């Protein structure tokens, strides 16, 4: 479902060239659960940005669901992000002035879904994540775990085929972190591909496959297909 071939990404930091990604090749089947691990600065966030179409590779090709998405124009890539990809961030990135309900509804608003349909879909999503009694609360009135659940509800409201999570538990206490990880794994069981960046070995162990990155390269695969 995901095919990355010969991905290169170079940033200019001042006068210096920084190779964030060097000849990255990666494939993922639909429904996989992958943890991308590695020390900070190893390029795992850059890889996730490429996978999420938030950044363009300098060279190489990226195929998602049979479409060569690295060749699409900006507007088409935005449409892919909207319908195929759900993001979960370490810092949640909820819009502070909007209620939990409105935050979850944002993707539907952006894609022009009618208000009454939004109402049913968002209410159902909030109920599914145990947030029904928090719908009218703003993010600063929610706990960290609740915020991340709102963010996950938002990421999945469009029924994406892949969830990209960047240190989703990095900003949570241990019990909230486990709770969030279990929610993500449940979504994975329902068939969504889950790709998670983490430097927490505990979290990495939960995944079915780990991808280790060092210095912009993928260093072989560890603990492959633990569950099978």
């Amino acid at each position, binding site marked *: 479902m995901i095919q990355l071939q010969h991905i290169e990404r170079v940033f200019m930091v001042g006068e210096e060239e920084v190779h964030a990604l060097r000849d990255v090749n990666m494939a993922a089947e639909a429904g996989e659960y992958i943890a991308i691990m590695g020390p900070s600065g190893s390029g795992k966030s*850059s890889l996730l*940005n490429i996978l*999420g179409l*938030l*950044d363009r590779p300098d060279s190489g090709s990226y195929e998602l*669901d*049979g*479409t060569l998405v690295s060749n699409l124009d*900006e*507007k*088409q890539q*935005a*449409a892919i*992000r*909207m*319908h*195929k990809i759900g*993001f979960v*961030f*370490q*810092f949640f*990135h909820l*819009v*502070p*002035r*909007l209620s939990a309900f409105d935050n979850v509804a*944002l*993707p539907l*608003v*952006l*894609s*022009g879904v*009618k208000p009454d349909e939004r109402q049913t879909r968002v209410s159902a999503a909030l109920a599914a994540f145990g947030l029904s009694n928090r719908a009218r609360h703003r993010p600063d009135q929610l706990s960290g775990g609740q915020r991340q659940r709102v963010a996950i509800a*938002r*990421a999945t409201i*469009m029924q994406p*085929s892949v969830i990209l999570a960047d240190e989703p538990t990095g900003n949570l206490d241990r019990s909230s972190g486990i709770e969030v990880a279990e929610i993500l794994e449940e979504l994975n069981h329902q068939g969504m591909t889950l790709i998670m960046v983490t430097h927490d070995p505990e979290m990495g162990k939960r995944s079915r496959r780990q991808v280790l990155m060092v210095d912009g390269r993928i260093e072989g695969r560890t603990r492959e297909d633990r569950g099978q």
Partner: protein
Amino acid sequence: MFKHGIVVFPKSMRLRDILTFSLRAATANRGRVLLMLLAMTIGVGSVVVFISLGDSARRYVIDQFSSLGTDLLIVLPGRSETTGGPPPLLGETPRDLTLDDAMALSRGRTVGRIAPIIAGSAPISVQGLEREMLVLGSTAELYEIRHLALSQGSFLPPGDPSRAEAVCVIGLKGKKELFGNGPAIGKWLRIGDRRFRVIGILSSPGVSLGEDLGEIVIIPVAAAQSLFNASSLFRILVEAKNSAAIEPTRKSILETIRLRHEGEDDITVITQDAVLTTFNRIFKALTLSVTGIAAISLVVAGIMIMNVMLVAVSNRRAEIGLLKAIGASRGQILGLFLAESTLLSTVGAAIGLIVALLSIQLAGVLFPQFPLQLAPWSPAIAIAVALISGIAFGVLPAHRAAELEPALALARR
């Protein structure tokens, strides 16, 4: 487009959602929004007030002239143009306009009414009360030409203008000065060393073109000639039969007088139309220039909007990154931020308009003698300018937001 899964076409946001989103984003920071609205309010308010001021002044002057009648031509002795060459040895004085000239003009085919005028100042006295007043010598037709109105009695009798009947019509204020509240019709008064019987009293139309019609005495033109011991006329008012006849009348007046004055063009004919047009042009230019000055404050407001929006964009980098991550295209981000600046400038313009209306009302209460009213097209102009500046000054911040790299915008704070 896709091999598996649903075929999707990027749909755009609903207009109501765009407005709701922008409104909530705009109102999230009260202080900045108030500042911005204040700037726009002052800008639009001053433009509307200045346009209305200029327009009201124009209308005031035009109204004053129109009360004279618009088909009017005024014939003055002497030419207004400078003719070339050194002054002639024997000083060339323009010939006088005479009553006979006026009679000749009244025979013109396109001429409706005609009123010769002699003007002078003379002491008026009644039983020891004496007062200096403007004395106008004219004919019965002055009544219609100047749109005069009587409160009592009758105007000068029609008939041969060379007959010097000893009657007069007196302004309302002059009557009060000389006769008090008692009756005046049929009483005699003295102008210089002559006696005139009062036959009519003007009602008070106030000031017309600088002449106070309250303190005036109108006597037959022939009586004024002998009173001032002069045969020359101050001016002749000629009313054309209709507005289409103004130009032919002007030509025929010049022609008639040239024939009577041995081929000399020694008069000036002013048409009401030309005067009106000139005043119109002057006041429009004035209005435009004060509006231009006021528009500077609109530009300042626009720059303020740009500043506020730029700050908003840099404060909301993470939000913009997020919107992109969940599928907003560059165009959508651009639209959202443009909507926000346009919304703010429109609301500011609306408030500015209300403030302008209120201050015009207030000015009307404070200065009732100057009829200030809202220029009918000024709200449209102000709103249009506000919208245009909101969009124009919103483009740069919106563009900056749209071009933000989502990966960088979402990077850890």
